[in-house]
């Protein structure tokens, strides 16, 4: 692991907090273990000031625990790899400044507790990618006469917010629908994918109607809009207000609103569903996706 860029006692930036609010040493309480079990281990390490949590974890790895497993890539809050729970709050370790934490007490760092653990701070996020594969992709209609597609800025600016997602899965991790009730996983997409679905449903060129899917198979009704996903999103995406609630309202249009239903009957919009739409909306089972509730065999090493 690169430690060249790490701040050392010698090159501590001038003006770095010192004194009682910034003790000489900090204690990091890291979760160590794998699927067979584990526990918190305390590491006391010099407090260099000006660091983020991931820096300190890397120094522990370099100096005290070379076998510590931790996932990271960019150290810039852009790759979404270093998700963990810092003092119980789902955070990106690389975007959590040590100076925002109470350094006189041990700082607990556990892996995301909504996902199965692989080792130490690394968790298995494959469930989320399986959900991603269940979502019918973008399907534009036919091209215009000159062979192009056109859309106006006002039509796309709303969905640009959702493109900021870095797939850190902190929102999926914190969502109580699956964090606290694992049995809901096969029937629930989770907040990150509601943002994705909202992006598709609001896309001016997309032609699919995913509302039945969103309601019946992807479980938007399980969300009780308690907004923890929005609270933890490091990209500040308003997942609940701008994605989930608009999806819920669209589902009301499709399934629960008697006037909307009557309107469709009266106007008799014949909707001959194009074959490619039907294919794209085929149930996830048809794609051969296996979502099993069985715990996977434990890796032996």
């Amino acid at each position, binding site marked *: 692991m690169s430690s060249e860029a790490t701040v050392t006692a010698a090159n501590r930036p001038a003006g770095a907090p010192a004194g009682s609010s910034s003790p000489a040493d900090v204690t990091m309480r890291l979760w160590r273990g794998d699927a067979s079990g584990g526990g918190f281990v305390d590491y006391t390490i010099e407090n260099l000031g000006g660091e983020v949590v991931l820096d300190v974890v890397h120094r522990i790895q370099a100096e005290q625990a070379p076998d510590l497993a931790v996932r990271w890539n960019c150290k810039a809050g852009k790759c979404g790899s270093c998700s963990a729970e810092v003092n119980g709050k789902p955070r990106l370790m690389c975007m959590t400044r040590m100076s925002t934490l109470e350094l006189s007490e041990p700082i*607990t760092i556990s892996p995301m507790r909504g996902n199965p653990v692989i080792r130490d701070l690394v968790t298995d996020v494959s469930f989320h990618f399986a959900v991603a594969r269940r979502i019918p992709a973008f399907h534009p209609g036919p091209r215009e006469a000159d062979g192009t597609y056109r859309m106006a800025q006002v039509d796309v600016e709303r969905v640009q917010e959702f493109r900021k997602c870095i797939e850190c899965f902190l929102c999926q991790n914190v969502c109580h629908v699956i964090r606290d009730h694992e049995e809901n996983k096969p029937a629930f997409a989770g907040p990150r994918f509601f943002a994705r679905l909202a992006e598709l449903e609001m896309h001016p060129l997309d032609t699919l109607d995913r509302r039945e899917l969103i309601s019946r198979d992807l479980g938007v009704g399980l969300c009780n809009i308690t907004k923890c996903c929005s609270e933890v999103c490091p990209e500040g995406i308003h997942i609940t207000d701008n994605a989930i609630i608009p999806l819920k309202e669209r589902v009301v249009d499709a399934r629960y609103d008697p006037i909307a239903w009557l309107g469709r009957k009266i106007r008799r919009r014949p909707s001959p569903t194009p074959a490619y739409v039907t294919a794209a909306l085929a149930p996830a089972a048809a794609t051969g996706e296996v979502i099993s509730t069985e715990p996977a065999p434990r890796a032996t090493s």
Partner: protein
Amino acid sequence: MTVVDQTQGPPRPTPVRIGGTRGGPPLSTVLRKDRWRLQPTLTAIGLLGFIGYSIWAALRNGNFYAGNVGRDYLSPLYSPCITHSCVSAGYVWGPIFGGWWRISPAWLILVFPGAFRTTCYYYRKAYYRSFWLSPPACAVPDAGSTNPTSPRHRYTGETRLPLILQNIHRYTWYVAVIFAGILTWDAIAAFRFPNGVGVAVGTLLFVVNAVFIWAYTLGCHACRHLCGGNLKRFSDAPVRHFFWKNISSKLNAHHQLFAWCSLFSIIATDLYTWLVASGTMHDPRIF
């Protein structure tokens, strides 16, 4: 650009495990160190306070109209007043319900704004968190979820009766718009004095109340959807896009704030009307 045909290619079976051992201590161990109990507690106190106050105000069944002291103030908890007791209180409207209606008219009225606020997306969040503890705070387990024998071990969200009825929220919004109109009328009426138009402290209170009610009602998520959010292409409907972007979405971003402001302004307006009508307090006229 090529259109990707999803039907192409063989299916890719991908075994995915959703079970498996979680890392960290059991979920029942809350690792948060901040004061996460504070917010649900404050919310619960605020909501219970409002419910308690409105029950008291509804049972009062008197001093809801300040006509006796030369003020055209009708408490928002009694508006529109359509029962016999409004006539005996000196109010101009009513009675749709004859003298046989003995119960406080407030009960007839509170049902509608009550349904609107109960199914409001913000208030849902508030009471799911602070009363139902589902979850009480983020990364804190749902009540009952860590106990396999608890009846709340399973969770179905808003997919079953009765909570599936939250989906009627837009119908309560339709009624709420009518109520906002009525409260606007009450605010205009508050400018009427026996000798012409004027402004008193109470008048200002009624105006502020009407403004908060509109800010809350037009920032409703159902309103935001109906006024334009349901469109795929805004460029086809510039007027609806304008309303969606500049009015509903802007108010919606502060929906929680207006939910509380309007709750307090309703209490304040009712309380003030009561104080003035009962003669406990004099309502100073500004001009």
